[in-house]
């Protein structure tokens, strides 16, 4: 068996000491066999199987390279990635990095920029990929990752409930205010004040701020913009749902929600009338809520906001700088991100394809919900992480700020001002660490 990269690392100091040519004696010791590259993935179960199928197909058709696929599943898998980078023990290719973390790694200099490889393979990144990915796979102007999936967010609603409360099921909400009113109309309480059903409770301030026209970072001035007036408006709107949904009761009610991936999911049993979700909802509805009569609509934007917004954060493919088989890793990645493999993968796992052309495939064209999601993904208002290295921390702090205002009852403006102050500091410190001052 060809030694793996990790095994070879241990050999390195020894071979240098003894003056033996490392490349010839160590990892290069192929003796005519294929070069083995290691590829870590975060996909598991059924999705891992499909990924493995693609890897097998590549291995069959490319005798010079053998790709070894290893599943690094779950939270600990993603933590392992960080530790692997820290110890220079990374594989040759990995899809175990979230788009959210891309800038974090790229700016720490542990990833290989892909621009040259793309150019050599005559790939036209900006033509192939949907707009949101064009920006979120780039850091400081360079492309650091490719993707084989992407996702969208929108709202699925229960037509039956709409009809029952006198709303027009063929005219779903088109502005945040309409959404709020529709949510109130669909909300049903018991005489003792306990909830039987509510219409909609917005979550994910990160996305809603974008819908309202706000941003979290301004790349032109390189400044954090957590308290952008649009962000404040978005948070105020989210808090306005408390006027008819007591947050404590709503939280208690939410705690009784079953898993979305089972038939007891809150949307399937009619505990909520509207569900903020993504393209995978179609598959779930088929499986767990076959009797629900549903429709869908994009996240409604106010005048001056960004209609058809959705937030993109999937796992992305990177080639670590420490890889000793970058060329082979690229060859595989180049193959895997072509139309055919992407079509196979996205259509079997039910994700929106990141390549514009694949959206034309029958699987996506013939399914109305998918057609809608693909349309969203191609829009100009799709957005991803802002490409700053402390985004993971920033992102979890945004969620905390959201909770403080929507559940804790704190003033939205004050909460975001405080977030602004703290994140400015964090940003300055990170930049100092990275020598980007």
């Amino acid at each position, binding site marked *: 068996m060809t030694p793996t990269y990790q095994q070879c690392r241990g050999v390195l100091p020894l071979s240098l000491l003894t003056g033996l040519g490392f490349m010839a004696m160590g990892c290069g010791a192929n003796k005519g066999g294929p070069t083995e590259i290691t590829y870590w993935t975060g996909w598991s179960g059924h999705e891992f199987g499909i990924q493995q199928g693609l890897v097998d197909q590549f291995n069959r058709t490319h005798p010079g390279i053998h790709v070894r696929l290893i599943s690094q599943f779950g939270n600990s898998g993603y933590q392992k990635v960080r*530790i692997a980078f820290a110890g220079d023990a990374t594989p040759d290719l990995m899809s175990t990095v979230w788009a959210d973390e891309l800038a*974090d*790694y790229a700016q*720490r200099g542990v990833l290989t920029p892909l621009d040259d490889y793309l150019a050599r393979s005559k790939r036209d990144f900006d033509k192939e990929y949907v707009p949101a990915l064009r920006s979120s796979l780039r850091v400081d102007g360079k492309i650091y990752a490719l993707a084989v999936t992407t996702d969208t967010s929108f709202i699925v609603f229960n037509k039956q409930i709409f009809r029952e409360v006198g709303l027009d099921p063929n005219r779903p909400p088109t502005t945040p205010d309409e959404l709020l009113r529709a949510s109130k109309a669909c909300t049903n309480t018991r005489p003792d004040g306990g909830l039987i059903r509510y219409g909609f409770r917005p979550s994910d301030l990160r996305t809603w701020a974008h819908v309202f026209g706000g941003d979290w970072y301004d790349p032109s001035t390189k400044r954090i913009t957590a308290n952008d007036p649009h962000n404040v408006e978005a948070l105020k709107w989210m808090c306005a749902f408390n006027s008819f949904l007591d947050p404590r009761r709503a*939280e208690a009610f939410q*705690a*009784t929600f079953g898993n979305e991936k089972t038939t007891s999911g809150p949307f399937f049993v009619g505990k909520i009338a509207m569900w903020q979700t993504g393209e995978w909802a179609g598959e779930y509805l088929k499986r767990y809520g076959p009797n629900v009569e549903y429709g869908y609509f994009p996240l409604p934007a106010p005048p001056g906001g960004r209609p058809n917004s959705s937030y993109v954060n999937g796992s992305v493919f990177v080639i670590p700088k420490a890889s000793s088989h970058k060329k082979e890793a690229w060859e595989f990645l180049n193959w895997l991100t072509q139309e055919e493999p992407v079509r196979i993968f996205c259509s079997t796992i039910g994700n929106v394809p990141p390549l514009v052309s694949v959206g034309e495939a029958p699987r996506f064209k013939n399914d109305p919900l998918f057609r809608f999601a693909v349309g969203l993904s191609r829009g100009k208002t799709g957005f991803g992480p802002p490409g700053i290295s402390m985004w993971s921390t920033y992102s979890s702090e945004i969620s905390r700020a959201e909770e403080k205002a929507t*559940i804790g009852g704190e003033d939205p403006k004050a909460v975001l001002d405080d977030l602004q102050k703290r994140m400015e500091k964090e940003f300055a410190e990170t930049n100092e660490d990275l020598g980007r001052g």
Partner: protein
Amino acid sequence: MSRLSHHRSNSAGERRALRNGLLFASPWLIGLTVFGLYPILSSLYYSLCSYDGIREPRWIGLHNYHKMFFEDELFYKALYNTLYMVVLGVPLSILCGLSVALLLNQKVKGIAVYRTIYYLPSVVPVVASSILWLWLLNPDIGLINVGLQHLGIKNPPTWLGDPVWSKPALLMMGIWGVGGGMVIYLAALQNVSETLYEAASLDGAGSMLKFRNVTLPMITPVILFNLITSLIGTFQYFTEAYVMTSGGPQDSTTFYALRLFNSAFQDFHLGYASAMAWVLFILTLVCALVVFKSSLRWVYYDGEVK
């Protein structure tokens, strides 16, 4: 014997004995230095640095400590949550462990079976029992709330869904696992000499008096042991929160160790996490010392008069 004394007078032999001794102890010595001492000392150094695990640590002096005490609101929240568990959880576990041990110290038929039943939960791995309790505590279909509803409580707490009830829920779950401490109390109870009880009976003591003046003083060393270990354990309360709540709702179960872990492996502020670890260490140390100091007044060792 003669060989030994011969060696003792021979300095070369002595050196060899020393060498052999060290050689035999070396697995432990190397283990301690490489896997214990070195990481501990480096964490002290990292606590004075900004360190993300990838780039070289950058010296920033006491900034991490300053940030912890003056800027990080989650630090105080985590500290409060942890102290809540220490102040309520530790006495509760001692009380429950001891009570169960007293009950299981009776001479009843089938006592071995009862003892096994009460001890069983502490054999279950924490992650497994946490998942189990997630189901028990489910506000809608969990056994606990179904039971409470049968008792006529219309709106039972949503437990892990409510910041007010999340910590009590974890405390309740902790009681389920008192079997570990119970076994130790039981051993101590059985060691209390019959003659002491006899003497107390002759003096006319009833069972309450016997418990107060014989049983309790005699098992204080074991209570001290359990107090110290559960004190240290509770300061490091982590797994249950990590598995069941990830610190929510509204940070109500973000315990010190969880916050430390998240700083290190979510935010990758390894320097800051190291600083937190040192503060936790000192905190635990001080509490343990206070308990030890106080134990001079309430712990009785064999034959001691106080």
